[in-house]
């Protein structure tokens, strides 16, 4: 019901998120909330802030879960925000034109003055990335910090989304994924970054970098897995020293 831009540029701004090194610290989620509750779509309302069922609007949420079993299992911290799809059904389904995709950079936004709060877009988004503000009665979502990345009142180094700016381990990257020579595109190529649920055909702009392989071998020191046999029972301590003595005199 709402059209995508007829003459979109090649520019596709988005995020690259490294699942190999994200530790789930939530700094990105908290800084996103901090910036955006004073930003383009302010406020990011909290309901029952001190009550029995605390909930509210977040543009970026971290899902932590386990995958695999036993020694092959790992904990996955999976940050999720709007993926700024090239084929965003959340836009085409919008009956009023409130939900739209920008021609110049591909960012998907909501014009709150046109939003009637029908929630069709949130039903259409397979990633669950839309956030309905029950207090205001309109749909909200990640803006890719449009009020930071083009903000000439900020220093150049700060013109990145709040989540990228704050990540303490460098697990989040921002750039133009429409340019095959951009740093983010090269990173995606090098690390075999992938689309979430590509079979659905939404062509998400954001990419995820998979965990690196080889983890299982990382701990191999060549040392035996069992403690070396107990030496003479006379001494109370210093088994470590005896082990070292043997190890170093081999």
């Amino acid at each position: 019901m709402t059209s995508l831009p007829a003459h979109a540029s090649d520019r596709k701004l988005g995020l690259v998120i490294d699942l190999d090194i994200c530790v789930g610290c939530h700094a990105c989620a908290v800084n996103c909330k901090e910036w955006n509750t004073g930003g383009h779509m302010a406020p990011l309302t909290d309901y029952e802030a001190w009550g029995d069922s605390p909930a509210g609007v977040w543009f970026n949420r971290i899902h932590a879960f386990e995958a695999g079993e036993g020694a092959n299992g790992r904990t996955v911290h999976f940050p999720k925000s709007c993926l700024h799809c090239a084929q965003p059904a959340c836009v085409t389904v919008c009956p009023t034109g409130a939900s739209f995709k920008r021609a110049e950079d591909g960012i998907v936004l909501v014009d709150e003055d046109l939003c009637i709060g029908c929630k069709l877009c949130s039903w259409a988004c397979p990633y669950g990335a839309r956030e309905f503000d029950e207090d205001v009665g309109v749909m909200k979502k990640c803006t890719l910090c449009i009020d930071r990345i083009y903000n000439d009142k900020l220093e150049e180094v700060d013109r990145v989304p709040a989540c990228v700016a704050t990540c303490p381990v460098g697990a989040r990257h921002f750039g133009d994924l429409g340019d095959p020579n951009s740093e983010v595109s090269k990173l995606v190529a090098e690390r075999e970054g992938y689309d979430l649920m590509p079979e659905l055909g939404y062509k998400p702009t954001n990419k995820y970098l998979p965990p690196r392989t080889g983890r299982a071998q990382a701990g191999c020191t060549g040392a035996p897995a069992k403690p070396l046999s107990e030496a003479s029972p006379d001494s109370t301590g210093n088994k470590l020293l005896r082990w070292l003595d043997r190890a170093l005199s081999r």
Partner: protein
Amino acid sequence: MRGRRGHHQAHRSGAPAEAAFEQAIEIRSGWTDWTGRYHDKFVGRPVSMHAMRGVSAHSNGFQTCRAIHLLQMLLGSIDCPGGFRYKPPFPKAAPPPAKPAAQVGPMHALHGLPLGFPQSPDDLLLDIDGKPHRIDKAFSWEAPLAVHGLMHMVIHNAWAGDPYPIDTLFFYMANMAWNSAMNAPDAMRMMSDKDESGQYKIPHIIYADAYFSEMVAYADLVFPDTTYLERWDCISLLDRPISDPDGAGDAIRRPVIQPDRDVRPFQDVLLDLGARLKLPGMIDGNGKALYPGGLKDYLVWHERRPGIGMLAGWRGHDEDKQGMGEPNRRQLDRYVENGCFWRGEIPEKARFYRFANRDFFDWAIPRGFLDKPQQIVLQLYSEPLRKFQLAAEGHGTRQPPEHLRDRVRQSFDPLPCWYPPFGAAADNEGYVLHAITQRPMHMYHSWGSQNAWLRQIQARNPLFIARKLGDRLGLADGDWVWIESPHGSVKAEIKLMEGVNLDTVWTWNAIGKRAGAWSLSATAPESAKGFLLNHVISELLPPQPDGHRYANIDPVTGQAAWYDLKVRLRKCMPQEAGETAPKFDPLDPPLPQARGGLAYGAEFRAHRTRAERGRA
């Protein structure tokens, strides 16, 4: 790719770990060692180790840390390329020359630092009868090398009048009625306990906090504190610095908003109190406050020794001195201009082997980090430890009391040793599971452990156990169990997971709250379902045959042995499931109950143009 600080992609070498022990890393850089010999490269063994406080939080933790350090020494991986690296102001002489200062009585300043590094029994803080000077018994035979003090024993000792009764306990931002206390239920009981005459056993408690935390209810006098956004503050090289291996660093905080309520920065209050009480060091010769501007003045003008103050950057009349130099009245301006940070880079030739690198000595000495251009000997064998052990073996005039003699003899081994942790309960009573906690990472993004956003991320904590353990005990997700230790029991919800050791159970710390605290609803999930393991950890070990109870600490350092905790699990009866226990009477906040929602930032929503809304 635009990462904020030029984050680089981490790469894995792909080499198997065993190769690291056979390999060397070389960095081409000329440097001069402590004897004056010139070298044209640094050579290192690329073996690095990482551990957090969990290693030391056992009653044998100090010796375990020593063992790890010894291993580093033998591998040759200390302060070398690829190995462990010091961050300024370290390395220091071992032991550092600062000894703990003896108490000298009311209205006199200590002759040195309250915490320090004893080098022999002569440096312990004991009176003529061998009784500890300090209320926490730090630097006594119970905890000779207590370089951090024993915060967790203060309430117990004050309550018991051991080693002496006191009049007033004064706490700052330590939630000793809840998640900062070992044995929180007894800590609460002791703080409200009375003697036969009806007087409190701890007569007065003063507490400073920015929040209505669980501790506030136990205070006779509360100093309402500001947040970090409303105060001057510093992250000093004298405390826990933010240095990196290639540079020294420190930082300030400055007020960015003014308080809108009746609160004062706690450090300003302390300095004000000190001046009003006319304490030495707080007033000048005319009795006037030395730091009338509060911490802001203290940061600039206080000198620990000549030239050394809280901040290392922009010292001296010409603002060009680092670490050591005269106070500079414009110092805070320079910090503010520099984004509140200072960093002094170490020259390349001084970045490795700093225990034996003359180029490093030449850099460190004028900055006050070292006193002498002298090699720092890494000690395989620790002479100070042996001195304490000798005393326990019957040598010297100052010897441990009989009931501590064996402990000191065993634990002060000059070579790293291992002994079974004291607090680990007997396996044959079924306490076979190690129980540990960690603070949720998201709490580190906020000063308080509780706010409207963090509680949306997590408002209740389960007990995580291995799936196989769950199978064995017949426990599934959502079941409730009693976590039982020899000290007590607490009720929790179960969550099965793969990524935890079969013999270990764990949970998040500081999610559980007492009902009525933190302005939460009385039935909030934090108090209904969130729990603390603190309830089942005692600050004392079980009684000896003679009735004596040792503190639950490392006998070398006095470090609280949090991680010695062992527990067993018992599935709850169906009627017991759904809520945690023990529960404590809800606190009755002297503040209006916070209600409703929040819409921070709504006030910024003035009229925007269509372009500003993102439409071209």
